[in-house]
């Protein structure tokens, strides 16, 4: 019933897409983390000129489907080639790879900034107060007291976001980037064996996600040495 030869045939083909999946996920998660941190910190001062544009950005990227964002950036902005050429950004929008990275980064940056903002807010008030009583500047307090605690506390929630991003890279196949899901779709439409291909491609994603969850868990424990588990 189960045709192992077929699996042996398709698994290497699917794995050929794994580097692209990893690149897309890795790049956008790292860039997205930087963006998320910047957005979360910029809101700390409470300056409405910083807070409201960021809130709007976050609301837009959280309130619309990632697919729409990718299409808007890829096909939508593709319409403005002369203008983008003039301002020297066409190299970025010309390549589907960078369009996908841009869309994924902005998307995860928006979600991530909310996670980090919540984590910073949840740092017990007494700690920064104690720090300032010790004469630490606001910047020092942020650097040595608030951020380490907040980032550590954010790991589980951020882990979910990382998994969502790994899944999100599958949408890059819709703008011609042949990562694992794109290759899987090609294989299904050639062989019409949806279940086998789903099992093989799904296993790749599950192993990937499992590794990420384990790694983040190890990181969390490492950063929390005083808490016995």
């Amino acid at each position, binding site marked *: 019933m189960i045709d192992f030869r077929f699996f042996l045939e398709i698994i290497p083909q699917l794995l050929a897409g794994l580097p692209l999946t990893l690149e897309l996920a890795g790049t956008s998660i790292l860039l997205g983390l930087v963006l998320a941190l910047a957005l979360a910190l910029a809101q700390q001062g409470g300056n409405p000129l910083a807070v409201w544009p960021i809130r709007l950005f976050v609301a837009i990227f959280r309130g619309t489907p990632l697919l729409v964002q990718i299409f808007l950036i890829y*096909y939508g902005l*593709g*319409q403005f*080639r002369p203008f983008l050429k003039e301002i020297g950004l066409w190299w970025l929008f*010309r*390549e*589907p790879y960078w369009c996908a990275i841009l869309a994924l980064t902005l998307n995860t940056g928006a979600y991530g900034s909310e996670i980090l903002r919540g984590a910073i807010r949840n740092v017990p008030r007494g700690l920064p107060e104690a720090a300032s009583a010790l004469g630490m500047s606001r910047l020092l307090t942020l650097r040595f007291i608030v951020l380490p605690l907040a980032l550590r506390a954010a790991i589980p929630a951020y882990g979910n976001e990382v998994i969502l991003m790994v899944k999100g890279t599958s949408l890059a196949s*819709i703008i*011609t980037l*042949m990562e694992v899901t*794109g290759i899987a*779709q*090609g294989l299904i*439409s*050639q062989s*019409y064996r949806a279940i086998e291909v789903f099992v093989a491609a799904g296993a790749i994603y599950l192993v990937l996600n499992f590794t990420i969850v384990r790694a983040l868990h190890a990181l969390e424990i490492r950063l929390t040495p005083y808490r016995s588990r």
Partner: protein
Amino acid sequence: MTIRLMAALAAALSTLIFAPIASAEDAPKEIKIATEGAYAPWNFTTSDGKLDGLEIELANDLCARMKVKCTIVAQDWDGLIPSLKVGKFDVIMASMFITPKRLETIDFTQPYAVDPSGFAVAKDSELGKLGMSADKFKLDDEASAKDAIEKLKPLLKGKVVGVQAATTNLDFLKTYFADTVEIREYKTTEQHDLDLAAGRIDALFAQRTALAATLAKPEFEEYTIAGPGFVGGVFGLGTGAGVRKEDTKLKEMLNTAIDGAIADGTIKRISEKWVHSDVTPVK
């Protein structure tokens, strides 16, 4: 569970496994024909949602010849063969080439059209300067086809070529140009048209009649069909109507109807109307 019930279940299971989906020998009175509806001018969807194009007109003509009531439905390209297999409809008429690979899964009528595939590029590109050549190369004739392909290679070196996924056009590029060009796969031809207009890709590879329809639009003024056309080989025998393997009677009826449409010049007339050239297969 009683033995009788088990026997009944076993019988039900065996019919499930061995019985063909439709009875093969009766002549059908009503059939459903599927097309993609996104491959102008062969088949496309008008702004009010109706299907139109060469294959729609031809399908209606064939149905009249067979005296069968037909409904024409749209189905995404990559779902056409799986859906035919499970019986969602009975015939595919969607500019689908008859290839050995597809024949493993479904059956085809004789070709009702032969339409070479070729490149579309910018007029001022190296290949574009050559212009469209009337030559058609049969890939089965290896020597002459190889020669033509080798001549094209230096002109296309490093170019990005857009092509629809899961098509014989993609197979052709993968077979002959994988080392020369960067291939980008699109779900629909409309999407690669948008990317050609945006300047993200340098060339398209598709059936020349479909390219001609695309390039007729104002934003493609600077583009042209260039180089020779290719038929045979990975492109198979031409464009045919796909049917399930067990529907032998239906296939026979369609073949007779296609014979009629070729003999009385109907295919020539319809194709000149829609694609401005005669795509009648030469017997």
